[in-house]
């Protein structure tokens, strides 16, 4: 069941990241994301390669 897995495990299985390349700070930060954030990351995974550099809405 997915709800027993950590965020890192869920995102690794969805192909959003490679858990073997993460250091401890990454793991801790990712595991603090909410389930809602993780579900969104999993759902947009297929679009990720095309989105780098796009506006994020907050502008300095």
């Amino acid at each position: 069941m997915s709800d027993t897995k950590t965020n890192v495990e869920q995102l690794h299985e969805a192909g959003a990241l490679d858990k073997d390349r993460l250091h401890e700070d990454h793991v801790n930060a990712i595991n603090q994301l909410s389930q809602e954030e993780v579900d969104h990351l999993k759902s947009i995974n297929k679009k990720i390669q095309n989105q780098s550099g796009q506006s994020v809405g907050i502008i300095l």
Partner: protein
Amino acid sequence: MIGKTNKGITHFERLQANLSFLSARAADINNQFTQLATHPAVCIEHIFINQMVARATVPLMEEVINCANTIDNDPVCAPLIKYMEKHIAEETDHDQWYVNDLEKLGVSREEIFSRIPPSNVSALVGSQYYLIRHHHPIAFLGYIACLEVNHPTVEYVESLIEKSGLPAEGFSTILEHAVIDSQHGQDIINTINSLPLTEKHFRAIEMSAFQTYRYVALVMEDVCRAAPKNT
């Protein structure tokens, strides 16, 4: 080679690669915002929130300088201070520009400064104060990199104006940033790549960028909630 990691990529390329999954989430939420820009209330809320963030930009950079000046024997501090001094001059009064825009959209100064910022705005900006003061001021470069590299284009802002039906004068600050952030974005990339970063410095920048992308996405989700309930 200066600016290259031991894997042959620049510090910024490494940062971008490690956080691509989170920047994609922030961009995806921004796409949702763009679709909702037909609702004037959503666009006004977007500018309102940007004013709240912008009012903290110069004070954050001043804090970076104050904290960097207290650190001895760290070769990143002198170039960090130099960059901040230049960038403070570039960012000064941008929060006031947003106030002027909001007034043109019917939001008074009193409304702007009496509203308590949403918790996600406090988290976005407040987490930077913590990292700067209690970890290392170099972290702030992660915040700037996220917000100035991923800037809107002129065409994008013009599409927001058209969709919203609001007066173009209310978007002058965002439009100006679509122009100037192209250079500011390259400046922060060059700065990060030119610094003699240790692994500790890099991770501070990386975790700052992680939090920035995370909270920006949450802030923009809040902006989207300004749309009428039946949309």
